[in-house]
């Protein structure tokens, strides 16, 4: 986000002490999107990382001010596109909380199952992309094979593969597909078989371990101070799983563990996400057979109007705590809306985590932060 002259100055000149300044991104194979990092290097060692954002900023917050409460939900799919279902869920939960809409049990169960499937899909993609950042191309294809099963389930039930747009305030847009349960079970079976592959290929691999262990350390205090949430904070030993702390939908009815590691390094973040996938499978297994019969959408008014006041909900996306803050004036549109995106806070810790390490470590650290750029820029 420099003007032209400054870009030229940046790439040809050196830093104040003769450091190398490289512009990593906005087009760079490891940034997975249009993230622009200005990295100050001393040889191979990183001195400072300065993120420059905004390449995919669409001002969703401003956009939502002119949309009705029914409409704005689907814009949030475009923020963290890998957990779009959970984003939608967060917005719907806020409206339901604000207007006291009763959600049928069936809808709650399905929402949670789909959230967990989304989480697995997101983590699978992350796993592949992370391995690719470290130079191992092959796991990417293996993870995508399982992810494809999830996207097919989504396609069949929700009608879309990535931005599902399946949630309406009060429930779901339509009922699940008759094959839904069968397919989910088939997926669980395949996933359990294939998850060992990643242990052989990635987790236990000596190169991978030496690339991630002790790299990008984030202490628990720093994690809290930087506002990190999700797997990033949990790998540092901070308990911050919204599903446990402030359960929504039917998360209070299922048993699962909040995965907490204490090392705070890249490997711990990796392990947290891998174990989280298994916990998600556990949640789905508990719910898939006992989806109650009944309505899939509750009774709502045609035109939704949030009462005057301020509302905040949070949900646990694949990347951490996603918060929706709405200031309502009582009309059909939100007066002011703020999305607290997990990636934005997690990114702010990047400089702290990666400064002093090598360029190769930056890839490991950035990879385990699991950055989704539209989520950061909004």
């Amino acid at each position, binding site marked *: 986000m420099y003007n032209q002259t400054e870009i030229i100055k940046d790439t*040809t000149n050196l830093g104040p002490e003769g450091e190398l300044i490289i512009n990593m991104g906005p087009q760079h194979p490891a940034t997975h999107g249009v993230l622009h990092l200005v990295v100050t290097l001393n040889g191979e060692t990183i001195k400072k990382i300065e993120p420059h954002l905004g390449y995919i900023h669409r001002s969703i917050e401003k956009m939502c001010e002119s949309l009705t409460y029914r409409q704005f939900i689907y814009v949030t799919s475009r923020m963290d596109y890998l957990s779009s279902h959970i984003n939608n869920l967060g917005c719907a939960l806020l409206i339901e909380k604000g207007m006291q809409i009763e959600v049928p049990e069936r809808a709650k169960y399905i929402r949670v199952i789909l959230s967990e499937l989304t989480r697995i899909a997101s983590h699978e993609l992350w796993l592949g992309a992370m391995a690719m950042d470290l130079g191992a191309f*092959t796991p990417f294809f293996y993870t995508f094979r399982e992810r494809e099963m999830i996207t097919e389930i989504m396609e069949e039930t929700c009608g879309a593969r990535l931005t599902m747009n399946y949630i309406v305030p009060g429930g779901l847009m339509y009922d699940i597909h008759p094959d839904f349960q069968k397919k989910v079970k088939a997926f669980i079976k395949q996933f359990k078989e294939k998850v060992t592959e990643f242990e052989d290929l990635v987790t236990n691999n000596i190169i991978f371990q030496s690339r991630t262990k002790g790299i990008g350390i984030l202490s628990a205090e720093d994690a809290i101070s930087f506002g990190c949430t999700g797997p990033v904070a949990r790998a540092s030993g901070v308990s911050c799983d919204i599903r446990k702390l402030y359960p929504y939908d039917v998360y209070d009815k299922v048993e699962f563990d909040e995965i907490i590691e204490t090392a705070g390094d890249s490997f711990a973040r990796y392990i947290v996400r891998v174990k989280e996938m298994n916990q998600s499978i556990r949640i789905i297994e508990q719910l898939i057979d006992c989806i109650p019969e009944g309505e899939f959408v509750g009774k709502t008014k045609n035109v939704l109007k949030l009462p005057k006041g301020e509302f905040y909900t949070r949900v646990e996306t694949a990347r951490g705590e996603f918060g929706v803050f709405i200031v309502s004036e009582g009309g059909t549109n939100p007066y002011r809306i703020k999305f607290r995106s997990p990636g934005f806070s997690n990114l702010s810790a990047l400089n702290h985590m990666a400064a002093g390490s090598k360029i190769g*470590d930056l890839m490991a650290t950035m990879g385990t932060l699991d950055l989704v750029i539209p989520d950061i820029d909004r």
Partner: protein
Amino acid sequence: MFSLEGITTTTQNWLFAKFDPTIALAIECIIVIFLAITLFAGLGLVLVLMERKVAARIQIRLGPNRVGPGGMFQTVADTLKLIMKEGLTPDSADKFLFNLAPFIVMMVAMLLLAPIAFAKNFQIWDINIGVLYISAISSLSVIGILMAGWASNNKYSLLGAMRSGAQIVSYELSAGFAVLTIVVLTGSLQISEIIAAQQNGWWIFKGHIPAVIAFVIFIIAVTAETNRAPFDLAEAESELTAGFHTEYSGMKFALFFLAEYINIFIVCAIGATLFLGGWMPLHIGSWEAFNNIMDYIPSSVWFMGKTFFLIFVIMWFRWTFPRLRIDQLLNLEWKYLLPISLLNLLLVAVIAILGWHF
């Protein structure tokens, strides 16, 4: 039995009978140059396709399958595309070095072809210090890479080139030691003699465990020397976009690309020659019948088979492992490979002196 030896001798006899010896030699040189360049182009096309197919199979996908039967002409199409592309030279680059670098890299790869025995008595130059020649020339390729990285005036390129320098200089050592073990066992630096010494069994079988260790070290070291994953730090895609050849395009890029694959072929050929007996068929002790059957397979097929097997192993590495970090790469060399190969050389020397090998 089919042999390339017949063709070469007939040609030579004919040439020397027909022409003055100097002119005959010149004509032979031209033929050799022509053949070498043809081999280069052919190998480039085959190896790139092979890499893509191997990668595809490992990554549970089909790979190129649109151009020609089974995608056979994909690389031809790619080459055509690269030839048509504009060869950009950055404004602030050192133009002379920038344009020279790909040719240096290419020339080094070509020079290395000289002492390789492709089949029985089919060798360009059977120099009596063959192994030394290979070690000496192969370390030159770093100059081309450094030149490319420096002349591009790009920070990514510079970092990649510097990495490459550190990497090749250090891995030269253990590759050299691994080669030395075979030299110690054979007692000769000449390629043809090394192959002849494997008449009754390849060194990897005859040399006990030390030869196996040397072989493993050799494979690791040459993977690093050719800048292949998991040691592809010089072009570390996710870190330095494309490393030293970031600024290259068109045919100049293609030369780097080609040189990479030719280098792989050459180091694998050397590995096959030293450890797997080169063109020597698989002979097992006194099983005369078996040995005779093996002799019926042409020597060139043996050589190519072994070489391509080693190439496959190196490709297999690439599509399995993550990349190392620069300090880990140097750690691996100086803390693990070098001490082990030094000890190994000592062991081999003892074995060779006591005559414990078969």
